[in-house]
């Protein structure tokens, strides 16, 4: 892969993310959507914006089910299960994506520690699951190798 081309692409992706965030008006309809967290470029920044805390402790009680090798980065099935009590939210992060925070699930009454989605991954990297419970953050990660990137370009 041509490295220079990659860098250029990454740059445009980042710039456009900012442009889009500034330009779109209907954002107001969804006041709850954590825009800052979804425009953050690094994992700690995203966590900070999302939960006000960037220190997550590793936990063995979170299981991530994702393929070791994803043939198509556009569709990577990720399932997060956790046995932690009193969970408030589960966030799914693809560490090497231009916008690392992929999804954040706020758990309401009765919801169990299980979410499953298909995500895009630009390149190989860790999939990180961050679980918020009792105002503390717990995390787990799993490496996924991507053979074809799924973030466009």
């Amino acid at each position, binding site marked *: 892969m041509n490295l220079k081309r990659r860098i250029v692409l990454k740059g445009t992706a980042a710039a456009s993310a900012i442009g889009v965030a500034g330009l779109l008006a209907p954002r107001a309809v969804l006041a709850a*959507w954590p825009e800052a967290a979804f425009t953050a470029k690094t994992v700690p920044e995203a966590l900070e914006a999302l939960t006000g805390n960037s220190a997550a402790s590793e936990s063995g009680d979170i299981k991530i089910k994702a393929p070791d090798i994803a043939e198509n980065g556009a569709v990577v099935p990720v*399932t997060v299960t956790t046995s932690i009590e009193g969970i408030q939210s589960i966030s799914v992060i693809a560490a090497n994506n231009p*916008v690392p925070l992929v999804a*954040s699930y706020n758990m*309401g009454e009765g919801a169990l520690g299980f979410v499953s989605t298909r995500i895009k991954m630009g390149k190989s990297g860790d999939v990180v699951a961050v679980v918020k419970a009792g105002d503390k953050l717990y995390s787990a990660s799993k490496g996924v190798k991507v053979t074809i990137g799924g973030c466009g370009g």
Partner: protein
Amino acid sequence: MAKKSIKIRAKVKEDIVTVKALMTHPMETGARKDKSGELIPAHFIQEVVCESGGKTILTADWSGGVSKNPYLSFKFKGASKGDMVKLSWADNKGKSDSVEAKIG
């Protein structure tokens, strides 16, 4: 959207309801380019809300990093067979859709 954009199935087993949903949506990140090199504007689902029995079970905040035609599955307690579960989404262009299904 004229046609229903959500397919949903909810099943209860030993007190735990498993909901599986498939939505039809392009999920553009805003970083891709079309053939002429123009950026395709971002168009993705931002929020998915699931309710049952008047309570909000789960709210999902999504970015464009979720795959096209997103799939979502989750589990919850506190509903029984025959109850309704409602799922709705809203995207960054202000469109939305919702569907109700019976738990079987």
